[in-house]
């Protein structure tokens, strides 16, 4: 019996048979997935987390990277995920929370390159927490253990800047000189040497001299170029001293004692303020020197060979 394609039975039954066939096999095609279920693999989850990170949505990125680590603990990218968790905390200013994930990567990751990146980032984290000694310790460790000269040089370079921040100019100069000759140009060592020699030209005040001069109320402030403060300190302390003297002289010990107590506080405050002013003057002067040094010796992307340095285009942006 011949069946023609335009036969009614063909038109009715073929689509029904096709429908039944695909309805039966569709669970097989979908695997064990139940209707309405979504399956995400490790690669998708990692990309999802990285998407948030690149959009600077750091808290969401942290949550998704942690989800990635929880559901795919054996994935080779787990250390990268931990590193990015630390980086996300760092970029969002939560430096204390950044320490643990970065430390874990720095200590345990089998990837040497990733370990070094984590160490450098960890050193910057400590710098932002003003824990300069920990930063120097980490950088020294990198300088001693790194196999590539450019990484050792970067550690010396960074350590030099930390010593500059601590106003230890000579030690900073020594660290810059430890950079290997072939990398003097990328790290602009000659420009650094030249600018470091200018440091003595920046004015400084002697805090002890400021304190000594404050024996005469206001003189310490005047030495620190705070003339309004000096005038007020002189007038107030002189007035209080005279008032206390007059009170005691007139037999009014209670009032004299009260004025003397207040006067003693302002006299001590005058000395303390002058010493603090000298320190603040020196701090501001040193910061101007650092700003000038950064402007004159900035390391740029174009001179650091790609894939040879850890931080491409490293700039001193943590001071």
């Amino acid at each position, binding site marked *: 019996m011949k069946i023609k394609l335009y036969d009614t039975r063909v038109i009715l039954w073929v689509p029904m048979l096709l429908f039944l066939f695909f309805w039966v096999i569709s669970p097989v095609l979908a695997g064990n997935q139940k209707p309405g279920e979504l399956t995400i693999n490790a690669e998708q989850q990692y990309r999802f987390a990285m998407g948030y990170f690149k959009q600077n949505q750091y808290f969401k990125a942290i949550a998704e990277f942690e989800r990635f680590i929880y559901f795919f603990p054996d994935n080779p990218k787990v250390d990268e995920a931990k590193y990015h968790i630390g980086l996300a905390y760092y970029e969002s200013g939560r430096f204390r929370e950044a320490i643990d994930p970065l430390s874990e990567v720095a200590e345990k990751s089998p990837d040497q390159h990733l370990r070094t990146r984590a160490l450098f980032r960890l050193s910057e984290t400590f710098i932002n927490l003003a824990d300069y000694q920990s930063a120097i310790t980490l950088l020294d460790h990198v300088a001693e253990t790194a196999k590539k000269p450019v990484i050792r040089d970067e550690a010396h370079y960074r350590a030099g800047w930390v010593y500059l921040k601590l106003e230890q100019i000579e030690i900073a100069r020594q660290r810059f000189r430890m950079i290997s000759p072939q990398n003097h140009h990328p790290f602009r060592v000659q420009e650094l040497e030249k600018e470091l020699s200018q440091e003595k030209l920046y004015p400084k005040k002697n805090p002890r001299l400021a304190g000594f001069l404050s024996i005469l109320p206001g003189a310490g402030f005047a030495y620190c170029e705070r003339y309004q403060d000096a005038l*007020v*300190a002189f007038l107030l302390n002189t007035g209080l001293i005279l*008032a206390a003297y007059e009170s005691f002289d007139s037999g009014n010990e209670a*009032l004299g004692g009260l004025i003397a107590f207040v006067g003693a506080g302002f006299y001590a405050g005058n000395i303390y*303020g002058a010493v603090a002013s000298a320190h603040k003057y020196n701090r501001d002067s040193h910061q101007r020197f650092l700003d000038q040094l950064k402007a004159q010796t900035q390391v740029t992307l174009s001179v650091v060979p790609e894939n040879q340095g850890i931080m491409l285009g490293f700039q001193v942006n943590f001071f």
Partner: protein
Amino acid sequence: MLKKIPFIMVAALMILLIITPCFADNDHGKHQESSAVDAFLFPIQIFRNYISGADGNRCPMHPSCSTYSMEALKKHGPLMGWVMTCDRLLRCGRDELKLSPSIMVRGKTRTYDPVSNNDFWWD
């Protein structure tokens, strides 16, 4: 005795003129301080709660001098806290306005001078 009264009055007036503007509290009634008031903090609390409000927000610094005083007393104890308070009162609203950074507080520009800006060299 009568001749010495003007000296005493002048000294007292100088104290009032110089320190009371600087004790102006910029945070009237908005501090949520602990109910356990230390003996050294008590006079400052009295001033903030009952006297400062009379003349309005006049301190050009942030934190205000009364807040600064309380923070210094809590951080460094009564002796250094008192010395730092007196130092702040000497400096408030003068050269510090030119030398320290500015900050916006409730829509107004103030000079930022926290306790940490004055004890960094020994703390």
